[in-house]
């Protein structure tokens, strides 16, 4: 575990020294404040659209913060040859993958904390209400989603050679699942065989990331999901994270590295 944490801390150092997060946060804040400053029909108390825009920006930023660094971790180590002095130490490839994952996930978590804090302030000032539990839960579910996405990206990074290809593929898959994933069963019902069965299989296999997106509950001030459902979603996320990380290790452990 010590080695995993050591590798994770180096990942975290890299991420906060690269300053990607600061740029994204500033952009998110600027656009949100701009949107909030627009006067619609002389009513300064309209809040939902500001919340929606802010949450959309948070989601976009968080995906960039998660996928970008995760996509380049292992390819950059190989390209920069920093992988050799690392693996020449008593470090297993599993520890390396786990360390990279933990580093990316923890930093993404901190980024989410800051972004949701900003969202909470903006939303609270508009609505004069501070449903802290809602914000916290939304951030937590969002973080779990990012865990799945980061693990998926790490798998892509050991399978695909170029980080840019991995980045693109992962984002398309994630956005596709968020928009269309929950509806695939309905689509399957309208297709002829074997298309219907194939789509249905995909429906059951893909990680249902839309469960972790409770923006609508935040925007429309709806009640929180029940605790049992939250627990189930957490276990579900853990299973998919473990699946992608294990698959990454299976692919990576046999990859020859030539110094």
């Amino acid at each position: 575990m010590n080695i995993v944490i050591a590798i994770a801390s180096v990942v975290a150092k890299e991420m906060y020294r690269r300053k990607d997060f600061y740029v994204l946060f500033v952009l998110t804040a600027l656009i949100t404040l701009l949107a909030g400053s627009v006067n619609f029909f002389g009513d300064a108390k309209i809040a939902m659209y500001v919340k929606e825009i802010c949450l959309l920006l948070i989601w976009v930023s968080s995906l960039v913060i998660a996928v970008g660094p995760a996509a380049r971790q292992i390819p950059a180590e190989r390209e920069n040859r920093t992988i050799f002095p690392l693996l020449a130490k008593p470090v297993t490839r599993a520890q390396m993958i786990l360390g990279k994952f933990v580093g990316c996930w923890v930093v993404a978590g901190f980024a989410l904390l800051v972004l949701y804090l900003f969202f909470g302030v903006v939303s609270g000032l508009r609505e004069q209400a501070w449903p802290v539990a809602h914000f916290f839960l939304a951030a937590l579910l969002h973080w779990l989603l990012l865990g799945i996405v980061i693990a998926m990206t790490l798998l892509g990074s050991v399978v695909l050679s170029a980080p840019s290809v991995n980045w693109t593929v992962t984002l398309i898959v994630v956005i596709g699942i968020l928009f269309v994933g929950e509806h695939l069963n309905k689509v399957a019902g309208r297709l002829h065989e074997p298309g219907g069965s194939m789509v249905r299989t995909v429906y059951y296999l893909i990680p249902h990331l839309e469960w972790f997106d409770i923006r609508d509950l935040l925007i429309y001030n709806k009640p929180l999901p029940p605790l049992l459902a939250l627990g189930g979603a957490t276990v579900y996320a853990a299973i998919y994270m473990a699946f992608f990380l294990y698959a990454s290790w299976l692919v990576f452990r046999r990859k020859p590295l030539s110094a």
Partner: protein
Amino acid sequence: MSEIVKTVELFVEYPPSRSGGERKQAVNGLNLSVKAGEVFGFLGPNGAGKTTTMNVLLGFIQPTRGDAFLFDVSVREPIARQRIGYLPELTYYYKFLTAEELLRFYARIFRITPAETERRIDALMKLVELDHARKRPIKTYSKGMQQRVGLAQALINNPDLLILDEPTSGLDPLGRMKVREIIQRLKNEGKTVLFSSHELGEVETVCDRVAIINQGQLQIEGRVADLVAKYQCDLERIFLNLIGYTAPTVS
């Protein structure tokens, strides 16, 4: 004297680079042993299989057949690398870290205590003459400075075996002398050093034993003095003869 490094009928084949091509035999039944406390030179022309052998010893690639051991532990076990230090030929380290942070990171992998880590960092920075630049990011270092950081990270765990791949490559004469001094110092401390080099003069000066490989096979192995006495010529001539080099005749 115990064998610190041992390869047993080591074969490494690479798959063909294109369909219909032949598999490349990089290492062909290599039996190598390095004894404790000696400085061992690993020589061969480009493409002979030196780097491949080192990659197997370091666990970067799996042998096709045979096995390799470090301190009698199979190289497939990560624990085999607990007591080794490795300096790659091309030295690249995390550019966003300072030299201090890099050494601290590697020390943490070896579970060295924080107090001991700081003590070692101080000593190593002085040894490799980077004390003045220890808090600067590595991306601001020259090639020579990066090579010295590499040496420092190879020594952070006070290794019993140091594996150096072309340690003097790209260094100026002063740098090369410093490396030789460090190798000698390690030898005096009873450490084992395995290094590959093209600088045969250097090898002759520093090494106790050498092995010369060509086309993946061990051609010759023995004490430098014994080989020179046996073949009645210097190490360079022995090397050239073994790899089949004949000088062009002048008509």
